[in-house]
């Protein structure tokens, strides 16, 4: 899997903020009541009539330099397949250092297990041959793209090569693999 580096690209120009990705994820991943692994972040800027809006579907950024993996004392937070950041709940003591270390506030404690939890990029689907994440599959405006960043012919690579993009908190030094097109 060394030639695979998974990443996600969100098109903020087509996203309408319907939160289908949030519901799709909840259904697919059975997250506990009142908790979600992805969420909608809406920014309104300016004063009428000069107003602009950015809508972002946010989740774990699966950083190449992930502070949650660095601070984890037990190795529960680790780099998994395709450079994703994964969590082994059997090793997690629920110390919450990873939650404190994450600049994206992407993690929570699952009250059923007491272990930290977050987006997995739907590795249970990807590794079993399903080509899409659940949020991507349900998105009615097809604003969510997922694929191999190291393959120059992949959809995500082509989007990043042809469109303007940004990442969240680039100065946090986390090297996120979660991109927004503008």
């Amino acid at each position: 899997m060394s030639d695979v580096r998974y990443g996600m690209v969100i098109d903020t120009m087509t996203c309408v903020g319907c939160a289908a990705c949030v519901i799709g994820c909840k259904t697919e991943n059975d997250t506990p009541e009142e908790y979600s692994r992805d969420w909608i972040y809406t920014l309104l800027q300016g004063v009428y009539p000069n107003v602009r809006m950015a809508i972002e579907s946010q989740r774990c950024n699966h950083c190449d330099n992930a502070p949650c993996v660095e601070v984890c004392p037990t190795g529960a937070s680790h780099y998994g397949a395709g450079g994703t950041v994964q969590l082994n709940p059997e090793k997690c003591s629920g110390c919450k250092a990873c939650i404190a270390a994450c600049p994206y506030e992407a993690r929570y404690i699952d009250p059923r297990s007491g272990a930290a939890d977050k987006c997995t990029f739907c590795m249970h689907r990807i590794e079993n041959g399903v080509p899409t994440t659940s949020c991507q599959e349900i998105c009615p405006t097809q604003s969510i793209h997922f694929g191999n960043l190291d393959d120059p012919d992949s959809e995500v690579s082509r989007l990043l090569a042809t469109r303007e993009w940004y990442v969240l908190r680039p100065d946090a030094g986390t090297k996120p693999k979660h991109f927004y097109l503008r």
Partner: protein
Amino acid sequence: MNEITNTRHNHLIDPTMHVWGWEIPLYLFLGGLVAGIMIFAGLRALREEREKPSLALSLLPWTAPVAISLGMFFLWLDLEHPFNAWRFYLAFKVTSPMSWGAWILLGVYPVSILLAWIDTPDSLKVPVARWIAPGSTLGKLDTWSRESRRLLGGLNIAMGAALGIYTGVLLGTMAARPLWNSALLGPLFLVSGLSTGAAFMLLFGLSERERLFLGRADMGLISTELILLFLWIIGLATGGSSSQGAVAMIFGGPYTAAFWTLVVALGLLAPLVGEALELKHGAVPGKGTAILVLLGGFALRWILVFAGQDSGWVTEIAMR
């Protein structure tokens, strides 16, 4: 105008992150106190004794294993999956201060217990004399410890310093929490731990000479702590926008009154002035100033833990 709406409402994260409750500042306080007591006990073991120590001073090193156990109990209470606590000891993660801390805590026990044991007057060991009969395993350990007093002293200083510094580094390594993100938190917590350790010892029946030594040491420690706090504030105030936003929490923000009154005025300046007046007028350092130092050390950790969790990365709206 900038307006942000967010559909996320994960418990412990929203509206601001709040993962650590009262258990953590209490542990950090006890950890610092133990670090201070171990370092003072270690320093005493390295010196030639000119006169017999008071009974209180001989027994105070026992505080270290007792207080650290209490602190670890609070840590354990904070875990969301407490029955996985043993997982800390199946791994050593070099980038994780918490992993360092778990192993440091394990090292604190043998060195602090052995030093406390050899410092305990022999008259008090009569009830357990048969356990340390010559030739038995514990007897050999007893003999070795007595012969290795200086080594144990050095180890207590080293482990105490590691314990005191790591409690600050634990918070200081998180870039996502800009109020904590300073390398000065390590030395600040160590010096504060030494100060609270000295203050704790002053609560007991020490001799006049011992009180004078600890009182003078505490004045130096409090002064050093004030300098470190000042430098920590300068570092944040002259840092990037996230650091400036974080330090604003104690300059007009919600933690301003608590920080300046409880930590700086009552916890540092008042005992510093009190100890100076006591020494100037020939009085031995009393318990009032010691209690203020202890409350100040606890307030420092309490406010830092809660304010730090409230501090976050400034949302860079212009980026979009």
